[in-house]
């Protein structure tokens, strides 16, 4: 049995801020970085919402890129607890100008990219991170709101600094950084924060602290920290747990570690699952995707989570791991995503159990010769909005274009993400035609009993459930 050791405990919470070491003894590990920065007099980083939605608080951390190399990544400092930063490098707007303005700053000055300037530090940091990736475009700043400029001068600034291969101090510093996170823990009188390095020590910690809260990217939990300033007594970070990391691909399936950030999934799996590509494209914004994980999206069990419909439509399975007895081997169970959700924000996860990975098969069903698969998300705003309805469809067709198998996954229409199983069944054996699809629309319309809320009425949701499927059909024809 492999040995596992608890993460080494440290008396301080240390990280690097704009190249200078920060060592904190008293500070709560669940204080958000933004709060810490502003309290300690670094007021360049702004709070526009405290929700992860405006990007004014954007800072850059060194993280691991999809290629395993260190990468500057824009993140929302209002969501990230200090504990998640231990051992990391952080750059804020105050650290970007080295005597002269940084090229992204100079570009923003030149194009008139700032008016009131309150959003500007956040934009600078998003542009900064993208600058070192070499691609600076709209997507680089989609998570930054600006109420003044209408974005056009910011787009012009982005165009000025894209496609550069920087060889400046930041680039060389980056190449010397290590993106790997070491196991670490901080035990204070009132609060503890653990970052185990392997799944055994994770499970041990969970056994020792049955009320501990797991945190992956913190993009859901961060709201509790930022707004409610909730003090979690014990928090266990999944970020360094080796077994929850990594994406592996075989001819039959892809396995995604539960703690892999979405931006890594996005880059590594481009082109593998069109519906996953699409949904990740519409999922939140860059800053959030740099942190958010699939495990978190499932673990939070929101009925409007965007990934479950995709996972449902791809017949994905989840692997959960636990350790009922510390002397025994790990216990793993694998179940279809469809069986994971049991009710509104309820899942089959047992105490002491974590999501280890998600497996997405990409084999056609027996008898099928081709697969159609796509996902859709409708919100009041196209970009970076929470879904009114999210949908993902997979239809396998035989040589005569008859439906062999169909999966229709939806979010936002019931207490849990759900499949329209009756319609899936009705499709089997039918020709893939407009007639078939239209004949099933009434059934789809009544497949769920969604609620009305601030995002949309029940009637709109019902119409979307049916219309999105027809849209899928139309698009599959062209």
């Amino acid at each position, binding site marked *: 049995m492999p040995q596992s050791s608890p993460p080494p405990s440290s008396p301080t919470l240390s990280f690097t801020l704009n190249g200078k070491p920060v060592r904190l003894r008293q500070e709560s590990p669940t204080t958000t970085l933004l709060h810490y920065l502003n309290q300690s007099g670094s007021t360049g980083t*702004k709070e526009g919402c405290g929700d992860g939605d405006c990007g004014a608080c954007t800072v850059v951390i060194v993280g691991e890129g999809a290629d395993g190399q260190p990468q500057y990544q824009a993140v929302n400092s209002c969501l990230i607890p200090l504990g998640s930063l231990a051992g990391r490098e952080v750059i804020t707007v105050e650290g*970007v100008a080295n005597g002269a303005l940084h090229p992204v700053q100079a570009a923003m000055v030149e194009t008139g990219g700032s008016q009131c300037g309150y959003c500007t530090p956040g934009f600078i940091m998003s542009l900064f991170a993208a600058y070192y990736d070499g691609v600076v475009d709209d997507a680089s700043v*989609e998570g930054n709101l600006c109420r003044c400029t209408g*974005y056009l001068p910011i787009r012009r600034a982005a165009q000025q600094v894209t496609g550069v291969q920087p060889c400046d101090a930041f680039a060389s510093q980056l190449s010397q950084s290590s993106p790997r996170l070491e196991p670490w823990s901080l035990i204070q009188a009132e609060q503890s924060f653990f970052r185990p390095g392997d799944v055994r020590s994770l499970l041990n910690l969970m056994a020792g602290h049955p009320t501990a809260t797991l945190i992956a990217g913190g993009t859901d939990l961060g709201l509790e920290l930022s707004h409610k300033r909730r003090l979690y007594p014990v928090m266990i970070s999944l970020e360094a747990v080796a077994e929850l990391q990594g994406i592996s691909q075989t001819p039959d399936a892809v396995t995604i570690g539960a703690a892999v950030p979405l931006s890594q999934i996005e880059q590594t799996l481009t082109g593998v699952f069109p519906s996953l590509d699409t949904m990740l494209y519409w999922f939140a914004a860059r800053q959030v995707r740099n942190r958010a994980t699939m495990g978190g999206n499932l673990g939070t069990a929101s009925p409007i989570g965007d990934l479950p419909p995709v996972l449902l439509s791809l017949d994905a399975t989840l692997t959960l791991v636990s350790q009922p007895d510390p002397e025994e081997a790990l216990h793993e169970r694998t179940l279809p995503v469809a069986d994971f959700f049991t009710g509104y924000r309820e899942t089959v996860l047992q105490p002491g159990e974590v999501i280890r990975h998600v497996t997405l098969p990409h084999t056609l069903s027996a008898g099928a010769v081709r697969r159609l698969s796509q996902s859709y998300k409708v919100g009041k*705003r196209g970009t970076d909005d929470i879904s009114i309805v999210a949908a993902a469809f997979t239809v396998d067709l035989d040589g005569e274009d008859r439906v062999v198998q169909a999966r229709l996954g939806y979010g936002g229409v019931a207490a849990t993400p759900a499949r329209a199983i009756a319609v899936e069944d009705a499709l089997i054996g039918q020709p893939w035609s407009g007639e078939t699809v239209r004949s099933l629309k009434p059934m789809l319309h009544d497949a769920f009993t969604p609620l009305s809320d*601030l995002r949309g009425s029940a009637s709109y949701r019902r119409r979307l459930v049916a219309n999105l499927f027809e849209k899928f059909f139309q698009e599959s024809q062209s």
Partner: protein
Amino acid sequence: MSAVGTRKSHESAEGHVTGRAVYTDEQRQPAGMLSLWPVMAPHAHARIIRIDPSPAYEIEGLVTVLTTDDIPGENDTGTIVWDEALFPTEFVKFWGMPVVWTVGETEDAARIAASKVIVEYEPLEPILSIQAAIAQDSFLGFPVTVERGDAQAALADAPHTLEGELEMKGQDHFYLETHTSWVVPDREGNYQVYASTQHPTETQVVIARLLGVPSNRVVVTCLRMGGGFGGKETQANPYAAVAAIAAYKTGRPVRVKLKRDHDMITSGKRHGFLGQYRIGYTDEGLITAVDMDLCSDGGWSVDLSPPVLLRAVLHADNAYYVPHMTVRGRIAKTNKVSNTAFRGFGGPQGMLVIEDAVDRVARALRLPPELVRERNFYRGDGETNTTHYGQEVVDNRLARIWSEAIASANFAERQGAIAQFNEAHPHRKRALAITPVKFGISFNKKVYNQAGALVLIYADGSIQLNHGGTEMGQGLHTKMLQVAAHTLGVRGDRVRIMPTSTDKVPNTSATAASSGSDLNGQAVKDACSTLLTRLAPVAAKLLELDGPEEIDFIDDWAICRTYPSRRVRFEAVAQQAYDDRVPLSATGFYRTPNIYWDYETNRGRPFYYFAYGAAVSEVEVDGFTGCFKLRQVDIVHDVGESLNPLVDRGQIEGGFVQGMGWLTMEDLVWDEQGRLRTVAPSTYKIPTIGEIPEQFEVHLLERAAQEGVIYGSKAVGEPPLMLAMSVREAIRGAIAAFGQASAVPLASPATPEAILDAIEGVQAATSAAETRQPVLFD
């Protein structure tokens, strides 16, 4: 080199991009500073039975709880009408209304303590819609009617008439910096206030009133704002006032910076409006008469609702000559936040209604909407070029702008391409629309049309510039620096712009109504001119010239006009002036001439001039979801002789996008109990970069100098917002392409759900018409 008219980056741009620009709450905190937190009412309408703050005192770090008893002066922050208790004494009037505030050593302490304060309420029935207010005769202020001719008679005679109704929602300002104030008391009964306010003088007056002290005891300083848009015109006052009361009570400096949800829950927004109209027209689509009712949702108190309403009524013509027109306006009193100024100040709401009506006329006649719009423009001289309130549209640039916009957008050719696209795509439709803007410039309130400046030259030649306007991102300070440098003939970097402060320039007007540059620019120019008349003799003496008329100040030099090699540096002139005991500071002043308004007859010349523009937008609408995509925008806008093309372009682009947000995605939702459900950017969606089309062209109208305005420029803050009506009309056009309906009702904002509803409406009307058709021919 001329400082005026050149493309200059924002004067604080380097501060913005480095994070060094200081906003109110980012100053170095004085020792012992306290923080505030509100205790907010959980009912939209209720009687307060009992307030028991005592449990709050159990929280460590709680300093005190503020209630009515702590106010030494008047418990009222109202401006036009005194109807706004800072601390409600008997009733809460909207959901989230702050009832008391806690003062803590830290914000955390204040927050936790606030949750302990006990308030008992007796819930009452709230009024939550304009319709409910009308039904219950619940109004604020007085109704207003503006008319010309006899609309009733003209409607009776009209070849065609139709009726319509449009309800539009309001809009949250969503400035990125929420409301913020600091109040630092000294030990002598004086208060230094730092506030994110568009109207420092009013903040000063309100605080003085609450403290019961004369205005000279209170200095209000605005460093800069992280956005305003009208939301910090009056609405900044109560928060600053609470901090002042706390400072008075504790003797310590106090800060308040609202959390985003508190800001959205408690502060006023753009007014929602209900518009109802009857319109008469000819076969050619010429409007003969309009009879219109506008009712705004004022919320719980008067605030700025009367002038907002008046501006809506005065813009219900937009660009169109209506021979017989009656517009009646009222303000509904509801149990919601007190709605307030927002870029356009009622103008957009009035214009949206007439644009709705004009579209109805076009579709009823099956004429292209752009043709009907153009046919009805103000034109010619005299009556056909005079508004319904009797102001002649002198220097009418509508036709010129319109044809330039049509040409630069390649309108006709693209129409053809769109028709082809629509033919080929049953489930996606595109459309192109062009809409005009005519917007009146000046405060309706005559007294506000004045401004002051104070310019100080130091003996070393460096200069401080003060004026009464505030900087909220619009580039006012940048333009004022340009005006000062240009007038004084000095390099821009010689001039430092000072934070706006009531101890430098007293009795200022709100920085609002797009008037900042017009008013303050003239005042700055006046002060600088005064200084030049004092410096010229000094320079003449230095250059041994006979008289000051020989002197020009250019590019940092005092130059002999007729013999330019004879010259002396500006700083030498300043030093000499000091040595000669010549005063080196001067005030400047300006009042807009020749404007008047008769409140009895509701006629006059309320506007010094009009700003014009036109925008062409192309959209694509998805028939399955109702989602739209803005594909291209082409704007021609009239900024006169631009003081700064970079800043003006920024105002046009930013205003357009803000208007598009209002009309399409920014959807304020209140529930049946009057609770605002959209209190954060997670639920209230303003545009992101993803909504901005790749093709977005802005042309500043050329050869456009405006007579009588600072260096020929024109106000640019508000007018571009209304260019976004072209997006709404393009969406309507695309919806229309899904069928053959003769009317396309569309809710505002045009969210995907509203668009899908409208598409289904069009399809239903079309199939109903198709099934009726055979009967007609039987």
